[in-house]
């Protein structure tokens, strides 16, 4: 178990010094998601020691913890009250932290039904580029006081500030879960999940891989049983292990070679490119193993109203829409005027941006 420790004074001092010296900082939590983007330039600012649960009120459905708190520890504490992080962040091979989960904004297989990381965020305490400690949002479910800075931090890869403390909405664990398996090809599977997602069913995850469609149902015991009868398929024993293997990408599909993360409108047909697909989120998220180039995959995804990114070890940051990039830069400047945080991780240096047109 990690130690409870408030390391914020040291972190603020480190940011103040870096800002005074114009010295970039590479923020590092527990290092489990380093591979998601090019490395940041600068000396390491380790936030892993800023750790521990500050407040957890299960009947409020709110948990507040320091950014360095390991996700495995949060999962253990929540499980003791039969609750969970609804966005079910991946931990990958290492042991991710809450701060890393929010900074990268990734969500697990239940995302279309339980919400994304940004949906769960209620409040954030952060250090901006002026070394100020700022508190946004709070610990209540509904809060429209001021701009939604907490959610803006989610998925910003630490480029707008150092996350200190984070409050998230948590949810009760479902009383009952079942995973149904169907031997079907990918187009049939897609047609099925698109239909089921339009139907009032207690869906909680879907995946199609290697000719098998898996569907997770969750809710009350009777409700899950009735839904299982309605959709059919065979019961998959140890379903939870299967879904965890997707979330953490320990499933064999993610083994070797190039893998793209392709986000599409859920009903979009598969692009005609050679390769192997793993489809989650009732069609909205598709993983693609292919020899095709990044440009080809991205163009195909854009034509279908989606986008594609290289998931592991991309050589350059994601290409952004030209119109949006102007405002991203201004936002960056508003929070981090000297650009000391995670330089190079989300943007290339000025003048070298990879830019795409909004609607090719």
């Amino acid at each position: 178990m990690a130690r409870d420790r408030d390391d914020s004074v040291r972190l603020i001092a480190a940011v103040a010094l870096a800002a005074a010296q114009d010295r970039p900082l590479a923020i590092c939590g527990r290092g489990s998601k380093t591979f998601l983007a090019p490395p940041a330039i600068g000396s390491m600012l380790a936030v892993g020691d800023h750790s521990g649960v500050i407040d957890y009120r299960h009947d409020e459905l709110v948990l507040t913890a320091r950014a360095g708190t390991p996700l495995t520890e949060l999962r253990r504490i929540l499980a003791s009250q039969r609750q969970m992080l609804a966005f079910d962040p991946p931990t990958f091979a290492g042991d991710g932290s809450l701060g890393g989960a929010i900074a990268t904004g990734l969500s697990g297989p239940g995302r279309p039904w339980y919400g994304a990381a940004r949906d769960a965020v209620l409040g954030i305490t952060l250090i901006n580029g002026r070394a100020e400690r700022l508190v946004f949002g709070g610990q209540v479910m509904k809060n429209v006081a001021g701009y939604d800075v907490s959610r803006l931090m989610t998925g910003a890869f630490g480029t707008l500030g150092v996350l200190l403390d984070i409050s998230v909405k948590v949810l009760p664990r479902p009383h009952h879960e079942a995973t149904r398996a169907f031997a079907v090809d990918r187009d049939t599977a897609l047609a099925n999940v698109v239909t089921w997602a339009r139907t009032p069913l207690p869906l909680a995850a879907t995946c199609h891989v290697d000719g098998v469609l898996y569907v997770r149902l969750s809710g009350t015991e009777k409700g899950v049983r009735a839904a299982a009868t309605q959709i059919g398929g065979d019961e998959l024993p140890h379903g939870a292990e299967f879904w965890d293997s997707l979330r953490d990408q320990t499933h064999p599909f993610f083994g070797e070679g190039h893998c793209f993360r392709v986000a599409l409108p859920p009903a979009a047909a598969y692009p005609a490119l050679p390769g192997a697909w793993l489809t989650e989120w009732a069609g909205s998220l598709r993983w693609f193993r292919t020899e095709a180039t990044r440009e080809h995959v991205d163009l195909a995804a854009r034509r279908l109203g989606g986008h594609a990114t290289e998931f592991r070890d991309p050589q350059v940051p994601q290409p952004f829409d030209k119109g949006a990039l102007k405002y991203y830069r201004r936002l960056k400047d508003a929070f981090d005027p000297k650009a000391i945080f995670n330089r190079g991780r989300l943007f290339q240096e000025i003048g070298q941006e990879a830019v795409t047109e909004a609607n090719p």
Partner: protein
Amino acid sequence: MNAVTPNDSGVVKQLLAILPPHCVITDPRAKKPFETDGLTAVRQMPWVVVLPETVEQVRSVLRVCRESRVPLVPRGAGTGLSGGARPSSDGVLLGLSKLSRIIEIDPENRIARVEPGVRNLAISEAAARYGLYYAPDPSSQIACSIGGNVAENSGGVHCLKYGLTVHNVLGLKLLTIEGDELTIGGATLDSPGYDLLALFTGSEGMLGIVTEVTVRLLPVPATKRLILAAFASLEAAAGTVGRIIANGIIPAGLEMMDARAIAAAEAFVGAGYPTDAAAILLCELDGTHDEVEEQAAQVVRLMRAQQATEVRASRDDADRERMWLGRKAAFPAVGRLAPDYYCMDGTIPRARLAEVLRAIEKLSERFGLAVANVFHAGDGNLHPLILYDSNAEGELDRAEKMGGEILALCVDVGGTVTGEHGVGVEKLDAMCGQFAAPELEQFHRLKSAFDPAGLMNPGKAIPTLARCAEVGGMHVHKGNIAFPEIERF
């Protein structure tokens, strides 16, 4: 007052050059309906009102305002409750109600693409034939527009389970005052880059003009059941809220009404609520038939264990609608108790509900103004309605002071000054209590990223530091307010 009159103004000439004549309103009588939104205590005659019919016209209006450095106040359906659409006396009021086209309902992808002036309820009506609906349901949903919902991050009765506007919007097209068109998100569940979708949702028209909204649609639940429970004390009712949630049940809606609200609703619509109760809870469960049956039995057990004096469940949909009637009519019902009421919107941790309701009772006695409570108990979002008479000397002032104390109380117990109505002009002073100077400065810098000239909805949502310094000093000077020319609401 403003030295420029609409008729000789170059700005109006330019507006008339880009818009059909019936889309530019300068006549005082025609402008009158636009002087206020749902916060009717705040009124300001706009200088000129424009009601464009196309996105291209909106773009042109923005250009005119930018080039002439004229403030611009966006307005949806005008149902907002915080004065967010209060016009500027020297600015253009940009009404978006004529952009009211449902562009597409896509049942396969479970989305609707609509223009900002489309009414909230119209989306669900259009999606109904596919068995789908749009979940956020602010009480004004028959009139309020989706563009306004995005600007305010509107909630409603069912956001405990289904989330606020921010959880249900997938994409936006918007125009910045600098003339850029941004497309954020779309039919996918996420997109790379900063989460501008979240940033614009609830930004109160301060950052840009939304010209198109993509919302997610959900399947209409197979079964809904409403359970009503009466309690002899506020404490018992409030405690039941936490018990239901701690037992792993997330109701679709969980509403509470106190004795005054119950009495007013009964006198108005006769929904059959128990008028001898100190409080009632209305708990709606939805889902598949089996799931709802199981949860309903559990909720009834929990309510009885919390000493509910009466528990009844809806037998069918017609019965459920009847049982909701009193809650849905509660605001107009309370409106019959006094000439005016002032609706507050603080949110608090649920565990503090009973304590805060008791404290509001004490404030009610101290200020000599009655309060009725009808609110979203499940997410701790209070709506105390302070009853007053604007024609009685000093009552509006007392109501506003009392409201300020209620909001300060919400912040003190770890809550917020606004859960779903927005800051607008109404809660600017309360914001000074919730945020410190560095946070407010960060908000202002964030706004400048999108609107460096400060033309978009100026003076709303985020107080200036000078104002907050004054609010702090106002108590010291005992009503001798410095800088009387600065507006206070």
